[in-house]
């Protein structure tokens, strides 16, 4: 072990050849001595340092061309654009508080409002409200016809083009069609503002405006609007309004050129059978009808 260490020291230059020979006179160190001496004369191939450096520069600069990607402002813009798009899209998706519902012809929809009030939307109607301000202000905008079951709470307002309907907690039906505005109260007390006049409506009472004039309507005693049970019910309503309703419920075009459409109609028609519905409107008025695809012509017996 010691000898090995000393030999290592000899090769490391810590001991001279004379010293090691003196330390181990009986040891044959010729091979090591020769190895030590001649290996010193060995040479590695010479490197042309300047040429190597030039080569290095060449390959390094080549590398840089392909490898170094400069901070690309364009890609920043791309990322920014995507971010903006995502943010605005998510804003409209998640923070758009305007909720709106629409029904098509011959379609009704039952909606639940955030306060558990229920709205049943009749055909071809549009209802919208702001989800965020709903808690503070129960305000709906309606275009068409809907039945409301309002749960008790703060004032509940239905805005229409023809006027506002305000309640506290009740059941009522609002119908706002062209030249026709009708509010029916089924429960509680409804206040209708029409042309800056406030009218209070008790259960069973109807507030109806036809062509801008308020019409007196007799009391009714049904619990729900007829249209909820797939029927349209009329009580001294001008025929043109009945025709409008028929058109909405059946997706048909009714022409009634030769007949008096201001005739009052009392009765109802079903939403499930077009022929029965047309009959239940025409027969009481001594009228008849012809169906031609989507076109329906009303005429009186006499003229035909």
């Amino acid at each position, binding site marked *: 072990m010691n000898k090995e260490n000393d030999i*290592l020291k000899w*090769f*490391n230059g810590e001991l001279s050849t004379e010293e090691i020979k003196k330390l181990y006179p009986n040891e044959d160190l010729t091979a090591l001595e020769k190895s030590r001496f*001649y*290996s*010193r*004369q060995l040479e590695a*191939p010479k490197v042309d*340092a300047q040429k*190597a450096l030039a080569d290095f520069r060449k390959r390094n600069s080549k590398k840089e061309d392909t490898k170094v990607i400069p901070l690309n402002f364009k890609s920043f813009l791309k990322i920014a654009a995507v971010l903006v798009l995502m943010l605005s899209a998510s804003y409209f998706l998640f923070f758009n508080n305007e909720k709106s519902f629409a029904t098509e012809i011959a379609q009704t929809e039952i909606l639940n409002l955030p306060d558990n009030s229920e709205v049943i939307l009749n055909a071809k109607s549009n209802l919208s409200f702001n989800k965020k301000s709903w808690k503070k202000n129960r305000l709906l905008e309606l275009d068409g016809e809907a039945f409301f079951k309002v749960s008790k709470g703060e004032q509940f307002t239905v805005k229409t083009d023809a006027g506002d309907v305000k309640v506290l907690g009740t059941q009522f039906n609002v119908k706002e069609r062209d030249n026709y505005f009708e509010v029916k109260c089924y429960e509680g007390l409804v206040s209708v503002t029409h042309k800056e006049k406030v009218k209070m409506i008790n259960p069973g009472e109807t507030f109806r405006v036809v062509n801008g004039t308020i019409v007196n309507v007799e009391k009714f005693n049904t619990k729900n609007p007829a249209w909820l049970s797939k029927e349209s019910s009329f009580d001294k309503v001008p025929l043109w309004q009945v025709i409008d309703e028929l058109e909405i419920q059946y997706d048909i075009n009714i022409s009634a050129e030769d007949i008096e459409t201001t005739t009052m109609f009392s009765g109802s028609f079903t939403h499930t059978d077009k022929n029965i519905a047309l009959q239940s409107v025409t027969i009481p008025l001594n009228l008849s009808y012809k169906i031609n695809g989507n076109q329906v012509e009303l005429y009186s017996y006499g003229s035909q």
Partner: protein
Amino acid sequence: MSSSKPKLCNETHFKAFYLDHIQAVSNFAYYKCGDNAAALDFVQDAFAKIWENCAKIDFSKAKTYLFTTVNNLFLNTVRHQKVVLSYAKASPYLDKTNQNPEYLLEEEEFKKKLQSVIADLSDDQREVFLLNRIEDKKYREIAELLDISQKTVEKRMSGALKVLREKLGHENF
């Protein structure tokens, strides 16, 4: 103070560093693979690595980094040629006064034998042995260069010497 410290990322400093070490590290690479072109390739790769990471490497550590990088690059290459080094021309014999032709022939024989024995050493043993012999490096310096302990260097050297003694022992001559 720190501003005067050489920085690797500085073009002139790097150039100086390159020229200072290119020969030594090329030798080292050659001791490992025995192929001059391949050795130089590895060395250039190692320098390129240092240049790429110049900001992360302290100048004082760069030399060790250079050698260990070359070392690691070799670990990734399995095959290499037999490392046969040539002798410097017109080098003297051990006994300078002895001009006996028989002696000279004997010494030439030995030198040839030594070449092949060195070529047959393990890579680790050969690189330590040659760094010590040709580069005249102390074990401590080799340990620093290769980022290994001095004990490991001595162990490898000792192993190399054992092989040399076994294969070049007097009974062969």
